[in-house]
């Protein structure tokens, strides 16, 4: 039966102890590894404040000081989201995090980055103020030059808002979920080996980066 096949392949790819680990390799104890989770935390604040703004409508923040505060939280959490995501990207690039069969992890990250930019742009033109009108009249020139303006019309407020609150969040959330599942499946990429040293190679991996998670030390993840 197809449900049993799906269940078996999912459990094989992501057994519970790999899905929700309680240990991590010793090399993960470095500040460069906090930016992925910082990005996700900022994303949760973006989504939470975005939901409140959706409940009250896109003009609420002009007439309510609480609405203005939520709108500001939404903006600044997006700033933090991009701040952390780009530093995460730099870290992963310079440690060549696609090693050891982790190409899909890297690619989902890049596509998430691009999708986030589109999400930000559609939000930027949905502010219902003169600033967003200016942004959309400038953006239309660039987008029309690509030919995309035929169906992606930044002057169409309804289209931009619906892309921003429906289509792009679904895309970003799906991509982030896939990205995190890939990290769980393959484990965090080990650092480059020291000169002359080789990590034990495992099936599907390379000498410098095993495809399977590296055995952890006795260091437990703090509760």
């Amino acid at each position, binding site marked *: 039966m197809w449900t049993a096949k799906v269940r078996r392949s999912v459990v094989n790819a992501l057994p519970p102890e790999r899905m929700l680990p309680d240990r991590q390799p010793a090399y993960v104890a470095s500040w460069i590894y*906090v930016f992925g989770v910082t990005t996700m935390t900022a994303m949760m604040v973006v989504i939470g404040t975005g939901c409140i703004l959706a409940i009250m409508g896109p003009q609420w923040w002009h007439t309510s000081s609480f609405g203005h505060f939520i709108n500001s939280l939404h903006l600044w959490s997006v700033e933090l989201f991009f701040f952390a995501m780009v530093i995460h990207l730099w870290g992963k690039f310079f440690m060549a995090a696609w090693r050891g069969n982790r190409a899909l992890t890297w690619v989902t990250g890049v596509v998430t980055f691009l999708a986030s930019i589109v999400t930000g742009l559609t939000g930027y033109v949905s502010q219902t103020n003169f600033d967003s009108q200016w942004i959309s009249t400038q953006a239309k020139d660039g987008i029309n030059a690509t030919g995309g303006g035929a169906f992606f019309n930044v002057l169409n407020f309804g289209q931009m808002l619906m892309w921003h609150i429906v289509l792009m969040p679904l895309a970003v959330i799906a991509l982030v979920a896939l990205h995190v599942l890939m990290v769980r499946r393959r484990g965090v990429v080990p650092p480059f080996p020291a000169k002359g040293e080789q990590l034990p190679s495992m099936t599907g991996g390379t000498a410098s980066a095993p495809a399977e998670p590296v055995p*952890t030390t006795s260091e437990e993840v703090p509760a």
Partner: protein
Amino acid sequence: MDHLGAVIAVYAAISGLLGSVVNLDSPGHYLNWGFIHISVANLVVICLMVVTFILAIFLPFPGHRSSKGGKDD
């Protein structure tokens, strides 16, 4: 949690200080270099990101200690 509260307080203090030093209620200043047209604020943010990245690489991570015998598995 205490550590987190202290970090938040420090960031809030720095933001307040910057707000008093920099006039936030005026048109932005822009720099031009060829096709690059960037606000000073944006450039400051990018510089902060580079500094944060360098600090993340070199700052020691708290609580990291070798396992028994001083050897990793």
